[in-house]
């Protein structure tokens, strides 16, 4: 029978190390994906992911279950990403250079597919990544948390510490900018329907 996150937290606080490892197995991939989409660099995203779990482990005793464990973990990760971007003072999401194949550099393992499909998917993925790089940090965080992690508006608001209406506004503005950027780069959007 699968234990809930809160049960695993309780067991880990009771001294069972495997429980926290189970939590890591469950949430490592989403936390790494979140960090990567915010920061844009694999190694640094991995460092942020690692640091997130280290901090969570150290602060586990203080986790009282006021929020979901995943939300708590996301908050730690988002704060670490924010700290990283301020510390590094660089463009948070790297712009993919024109003649460098990021997919090759990242050495991502993908299931076998035709070269044409892979090139097409890579191009679209890169176009989306470039468009996301244009967004301010707050808008990008809102979109990443909503689109890729399925958080509700209220959860995002609690996590980033802003009003509910602000989250919706950031999402609307972010999506509008993305629509313009993707249209500008030629990624298929029905241009005749664009409302500027």
């Amino acid at each position, binding site marked *: 029978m699968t234990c809930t996150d809160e049960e695993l937290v309780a067991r880990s*606080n009771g*001294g069972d*190390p495997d429980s*926290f*490892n189970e939590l*890591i*197995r469950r949430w*490592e*991939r989403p936390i790494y994906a979140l960090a*990567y*989409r915010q920061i844009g660099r*694999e*190694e640094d*995203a*991995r460092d942020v*992911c*690692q640091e997130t*779990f*280290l901090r969570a*482990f*150290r602060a586990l*005793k203080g986790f009282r279950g006021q929020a979901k464990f995943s939300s708590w973990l996301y908050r730690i990760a988002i704060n670490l990403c924010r700290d990283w971007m301020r510390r590094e003072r660089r463009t948070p999401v*790297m*712009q993919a*250079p*024109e*003649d*460098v194949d990021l997919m090759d*550099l*990242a050495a*991502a*393992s993908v299931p076998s597919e035709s070269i044409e499909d892979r090139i097409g998917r890579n191009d*679209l*993925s890169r*176009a*989306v*990544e470039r468009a*996301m790089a244009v967004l301010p940090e707050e808008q990008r965080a809102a*979109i990443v948390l909503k*689109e*890729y992690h399925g958080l*509700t*508006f209220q959860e995002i608001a609690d996590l980033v510490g802003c009003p509910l*209406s602000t989250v*919706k*506004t950031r*999402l*609307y*503005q972010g*999506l*509008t900018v*993305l*629509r313009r950027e*993707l249209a500008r780069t030629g*990624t*298929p*959007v*029905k241009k005749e*329907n664009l*409302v500027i």
Partner: protein
Amino acid sequence: MADILCGYTADRDETLVAYLYGDIDPSQRATFDAHIATCERCRHEVADLQQVRDQLQLWTAPEAPEPLTMPASPAVGSAPRAAIPAGSRSVPTWAQVAAAVLLLGASAGLGGAIANLDVRYERGALTLRTGWSRSESPAALPAARTAASGTVPAAAGAAPWQGDLDALERRLQTELRASPSAAATTVAHTEGSAPNDEAQMLRKMRILLQDSERKQRNELALRIAEVVQEFDAKRGADLANIRSMKTMQSATDVEIVRQQQWLNLLTRASVQSR
């Protein structure tokens, strides 16, 4: 394109986003449904933003390169060491550094198992050099480890750092035995160690180094590509500026010639009128 007015009176943008994500209360959804049935602008915008959402799903994050694990039995409340890769335990940092030095020193003492490594203890400091060096004479190796007390005087003819390394090794072993995870294998013995363990350790270190070098090369290539791209963009902008300045320069030259001709004309005219 003609501006299409929207007659929605409430917070339109926020309601549209809530409607788009389906995170909206039923009464508000019904109201907005009725609105977009008659409002072309909102209807198109919802469709376009939904398309953007579909495109966002194309962006996938790469897999994390190595899985994280926590130490087998971390002390609750203590700061855990992230055990990456597997095999690392909750060992103090100084002990890990000492273990690496022991390993490298052992390799140098055995004649440079790692390529051309030279570990020397000079003037009270441990020095590590890479590159071609003299191979250690067998006579420099300690004849036997003295284990009577904590401090070990260097045997005659033995490397001066040998005693310090042995003392560090014993302290490291004590720490590891005291740790619940006594399966750490980061200590290398100068004598009596299984050659297979050492070879395995060396293999692991080489793999880690190669992996790190590969990642650094990739990162460097990416940074260079970014710099080249920025440089090209700046160069293009500068060239465009130079071209426009040349055009202005040419126009100015023409104007100067014209002014000169007028002056000449006026001068001749004034001379003739006298």
